[in-house]
């Protein structure tokens, strides 16, 4: 399919994570999932957005959020989400909805629709690029789930969808508990709900996963760990620097538990604690940084973190040693002048 002007604007948007290796990798997982004869219809873009989401437009443009990658633990898990989105595309769900509303069939009209779905009228603003998501009805969601699962079943991957939904529920619980919000009852959906609830999805995916042969195949976990560790700061930045401490900590911990802790992931957790900055957090953060630098993959910023947390908690001498080490390791870092000034005082 031809790329139109709107998509070119989208491709050049600064919200897109430009990483060819990652795009190639994700396309590969999609192709293994839905088949090499089908996957050519999709053009994948990775969007810097910390939320769990992906979508596919009728013209084949597929969006994968960094926040989705942060929450996946293997190619098999990723394949269930990509398969689901491809399912919407194959079933022409958005096109159906589109025609029903008697809009044109061009891409810009689709953008307008997506705006309506997210509650913002995007066609009114010039230069607007939709990074929002199309909304489907409950039946369509369920159909896409089952078609996605069917793709995975005929792919080299085992079916691993229920674990994803279970973790999303646990993450949401963690966030709600910290914010003292009422926890959601995860039972049957109400008449106005557009999606099957997480609990329903968990239930029917668990059933599908129990079928004979559904667990056969390679999860592609090691490959997934390698390809996402390479860009860990990109996929975790929004979570670590956001204001949902409990949710972010849940996501980081569950990745560490599933894929193992390397220096970069532990550094990421240390940053989360330091940035919240309760007195206890500073001590915890320092411990994580100090452990991180004993593991492969710790960035120079781990020494920055040790230095800052040490100085904050009264250990000025060791703090300054660590900050000097940071400057030695990253002499051209974007805050070296500010660090030098701190060292001079």
């Amino acid at each position, binding site marked *: 399919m031809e790329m139109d002007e709107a998509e070119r604007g989208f491709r050049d948007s*600064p*919200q897109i994570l430009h990483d060819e290796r990652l795009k190639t990798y994700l396309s590969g997982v999609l192709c293994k999932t839905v088949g090499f004869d089908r996957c050519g219809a999709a053009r994948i873009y990775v969007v810097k957005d910390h939320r769990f989401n992906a979508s596919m437009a009728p013209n084949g443009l597929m969006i994968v959020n960094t926040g989705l990658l942060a929450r996946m633990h293997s190619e098999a898990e990723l394949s269930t989400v990509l398969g689901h989105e491809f399912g919407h595309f194959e079933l022409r769900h958005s096109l159906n909805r589109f025609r029903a509303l008697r809009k044109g069939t061009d891409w810009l009209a689709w953008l307008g629709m997506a705006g309506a779905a997210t509650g913002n009228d*995007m066609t009114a603003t010039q*230069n607007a690029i939709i990074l929002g998501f199309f909304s489907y009805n409950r039946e369509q969601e369920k159909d896409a789930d089952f078609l996605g699962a069917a793709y995975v079943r005929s792919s080299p991957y085992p079916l691993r969808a229920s674990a994803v939904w279970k973790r999303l529920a646990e993450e949401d619980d963690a966030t709600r508990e910290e*914010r003292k919000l009422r926890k959601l009852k995860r039972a049957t959906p109400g008449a106005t709900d557009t999606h099957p609830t997480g609990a329903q999805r968990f239930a029917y995916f668990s059933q599908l996963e129990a079928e004979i042969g559904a667990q056969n195949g390679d999860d592609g976990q090691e490959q997934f760990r390698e390809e996402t560790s390479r860009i860990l700061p990109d996929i975790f930045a929004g979570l670590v620097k956001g*204001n949902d401490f409990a949710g972010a900590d849940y996501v980081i911990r569950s990745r560490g538990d599933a894929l193992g802790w390397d220096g970069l992931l532990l550094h990421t957790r240390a940053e989360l604690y330091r940035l919240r900055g309760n007195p206890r957090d500073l001590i915890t953060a320092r411990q994580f940084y100090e452990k991180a630098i004993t593991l492969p993959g710790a960035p120079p910023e781990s020494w920055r973190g040790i230095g800052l947390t040490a100085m904050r908690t009264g250990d000025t001498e060791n703090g300054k040693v660590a900050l000097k080490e940071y400057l030695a390791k990253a002499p051209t870092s974007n805050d070296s*002048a500010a*660090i030098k000034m701190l060292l001079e005082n």
Partner: protein
Amino acid sequence: MVSNIYRERDKKRNPMPKFDSGLLLPELADFFEKSFRAQNQLSDYTLIESSPATLNGAKGLRVRYRYTLPNDELTRLGEARLAVVKGKLYVANFYAPKLHYFDSHLPEANNIMDTLKF
């Protein structure tokens, strides 16, 4: 002076980071980023540089950054100055679309920040 840069409009759903007067100078850039991200619901924010600067004669930090707003592809730039005086945080922040606006108004913004009194 409030304890957070931005007024908290929804404490439960979008809590603002709390300012702690114990923050070290380089950490003001981290605090600014968290606040600015929360206030504008940003997913895309990059620190270009943080360096020493003054605000109303006080030692502080200059933070240069780049960001985009949700559902908008315009690259935007910003420059903020932060200083802590007697335990209170003072912030002057200038931000604008990169194209046409930022560079042309930066001298004026810097002039205001240079002469700001409080």
